[in-house]
């Protein structure tokens, strides 16, 4: 019966493990638990890890304390699907009883968590890095705060910059989901208004490997290609575009011209020089705040990236805003977080990449950095900041009625073919 004993033992071990998991640690007055959700699984697992680093860094700067209490992160994971994001958030809120929740990472998750936030008015939700417009523009939740700007805001100013470079007609290739829709709208809002034309749009599924059919239908008389693809999709497109003899300059989205693209080794490498893109931060921002942020990040995380990613930066500012407001009210969360939420609304600090503050929809208002790819003295390529556009609101610089007339970005909105 040796086998039997072992099986019983394994069973007891499992039961004990489950029991240990179910019984959550006792509540202590000195500790304040904050839920922290990022994608530690699925396609965004690597950005998800860096997000956690950003949040950890913000807490580390305060020596793990805020509002006179020790802060404990309850870390949660999703796989970038809204179902999983809500399930994890619900677990933190209803099971671990966190009063404050930070996350999620991606756009569709953000919308789902915002909808869930409405059913939990007693909990304050802070965004992680999700950047869907609809989260705060359509039917916003009064207890959901987003201190970062979103996908459309990140592209404001790039349209004018492209026109200044002489790109009057562009062809668009972008991934077919919410975030690129927003990015394209941010670009087109000013680009179309100032006379630019987007002659055709190619929406490709996330993770597309073969771009030959898209490349074949690109018209000859365009001035540039607007590429709103991320990571490996961008590299695949670039390689195939080069192989078919394409030679038009590129304009990139906020997550297009990253290190994988900059390290592109093809023959067209030199033609990457001058590629313009835009985003809420850039590796080469030349301010003491940014340099300190990068140095702190490097010192804190030996296993991190050479420089903090966009996600680390966004989680950092959102977490910092969360903790600063706790300090401001000395950890007072009474009365349905009334004082705390007022403090959050008043947030205004100088972050690593510019001022962090929010509008009446509780969405970030901040600067966008227009960058171009240049060659460093050692031969490597990097994104050089060529222009900073300050204080971009969620209506992309338009009045609220004008913006409402345009509607939220989608496959067909906005449109300026002819």
């Amino acid at each position, binding site marked *: 019966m040796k086998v039997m004993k072992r099986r019983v033992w394994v069973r007891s071990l499992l039961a004990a493990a489950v029991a240990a998991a179910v019984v959550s640690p006792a509540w202590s007055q000195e500790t304040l638990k904050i839920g922290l959700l990022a994608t530690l699984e699925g396609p965004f697992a690597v950005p998800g890890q860096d997000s956690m680093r950003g949040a950890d860094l913000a807490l580390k700067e305060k020596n793990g304390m805020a509002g006179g209490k020790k802060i404990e992160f309850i870390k949660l*994971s999703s796989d970038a699907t809204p179902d999983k994001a809500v*399930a994890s958030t619900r677990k933190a809120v209803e099971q671990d009883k966190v009063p404050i929740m930070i996350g999620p990472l991606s756009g569709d998750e953000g919308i789902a968590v915002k909808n869930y936030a409405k059913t939990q008015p007693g909990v304050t939700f802070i965004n992680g890095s999700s950047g869907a417009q609809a989260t705060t523009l359509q039917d916003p939740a009064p207890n959901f705060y987003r201190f970062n700007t979103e996908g459309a805001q990140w592209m404001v100013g790039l349209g004018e910059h492209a026109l200044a470079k002489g790109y009057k007609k562009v062809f668009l290739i972008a991934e*077919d989901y919410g975030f690129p829709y927003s990015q394209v709208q941010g670009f087109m809002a000013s680009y179309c208004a100032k006379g630019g034309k987007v002659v055709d749009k190619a929406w490709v599924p996330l993770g597309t490997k073969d771009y030959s059919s898209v490349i074949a239908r690109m018209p000859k008389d365009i001035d540039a290609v607007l590429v709103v693809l991320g990571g490996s999709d961008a590299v695949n497109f670039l390689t195939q575009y080069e192989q078919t003899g394409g030679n038009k300059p590129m304009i990139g989205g906020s997550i297009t011209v990253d290190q994988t693209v900059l390290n592109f080794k093809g023959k067209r490498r030199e033609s990457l020089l001058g590629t313009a893109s835009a985003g809420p931060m850039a590796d080469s921002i030349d301010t003491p705040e940014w340099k300190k942020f990068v140095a702190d990040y490097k010192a804190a995380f030996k296993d991190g990236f050479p420089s903090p990613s966009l996600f680390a930066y966004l989680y950092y500012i959102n977490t910092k805003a969360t903790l600063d407001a706790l300090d401001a009210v000395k950890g007072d969360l009474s009365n349905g977080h009334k004082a705390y939420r007022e403090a959050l609304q008043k947030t205004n600090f100088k972050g690593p990449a510019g001022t962090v503050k929010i509008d009446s929809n509780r969405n970030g208002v901040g600067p966008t950095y227009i960058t171009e790819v240049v060659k460093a003295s050692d031969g490597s390529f990097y994104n050089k900041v060529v222009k900073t556009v300050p204080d971009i609101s969620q209506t992309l610089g338009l009045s609220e009625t004008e913006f409402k007339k345009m509607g939220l970005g989608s496959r067909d909105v906005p449109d300026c073919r002819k």
Partner: protein
Amino acid sequence: MSAAYWRRAINSGAAARMQARPSPTQPSVVVGVDRSEPTTRGWVAFLRRELSVRHVVILVGVLIYPFVASPFFTYQIGAQALALGLIALSLTMLAGYGGMVSLAQMTVAGLAGYLVAIFGHSAATAISLNWPWWVAVPFALALAVVFATAVGWLSVRTEGIYTIMITLAIGVALFYLAQQNYTLLNGHQGFNQVFPPKIGDVDFRAPVAFYYLALACALLGYFFVKHLVRTPFGVALQGIRDNQRRMHALGYNVMAHRVAAYAVGGLLAAVGGVLITWYNNRISPGSMGLGVMINILVIAVLGGMKHPVGAFVGAIVFVLLQNFAIDLVDRERFNLVIGGVFLVIVLFSPDGLLGLWAMVRSRFGPQSPNTNQRRHP
């Protein structure tokens, strides 16, 4: 059920009745547990035959569960496990009693969820038809069953690994269709705000009400399958599983039985799919992607396929692990715990958790006569 048992069943005259093909819903005591009163058809007798003390304890347990558990445990653990269990039950029925491992059960469930969103209410007002739930749900279930039957037609002519491959192909194809079709299925975004109905004063969005809805469906599904496997149809299905050629020689239409099993399994999966869509309040391609399809297989294997209850046992353990593994191991390593537990269970007990239970029982009590014994693995 062993072949010997089956032979006995034929010899006892049940075969004659089977060839006359009575309605499968009609209770008939082919494998009589209580042979002393095989003709009793009364409600009380039926209950006495079907229910033991163990059943009553579990029944009372699941009924009072929402009153002792927090809303989180009621909704996210309880209701989700019941809905997932129902989908896994359809696989248990197909695989455990029919010998057909179909990966497309989650696809059938997802399709039912999509259809409820299209026929009923959702945030995508341009697509949703806004039919009332009592029209939308039956239509969704009916179409999902038609789809499941079609999947059956395509896959019953294959065996073993080929069945898995063809159902996998169908599932992945439908996933990509949903991902890329914007006119009907709304692409990547899918449908948001697909809420369960309000009937009278009962709002099924509330955790407790939704739990009871899921529980009612799960119990119906469970007892339906438990009953079905003892009807002539169910027995014939197990016969086909154990020896297809002999059943063919006996005059059974093997293909028709298998397709019918797919249809019945499709109904169970479709009900589970509607529940899980209401549970998430949304459906998108990710809700029926490859990962979720495999999760259903994992749940069924984890629980054990020898008895319908295995699907629910597997679902409870699976949901608990998904929710709480991250508390055991920090950060990105927690999937290791989930994988490790699956590995341990499958390694030490090929019949899943039910196998462990049977081992414990065999030490302390008599073997249950109701377990679905298989001769050929």
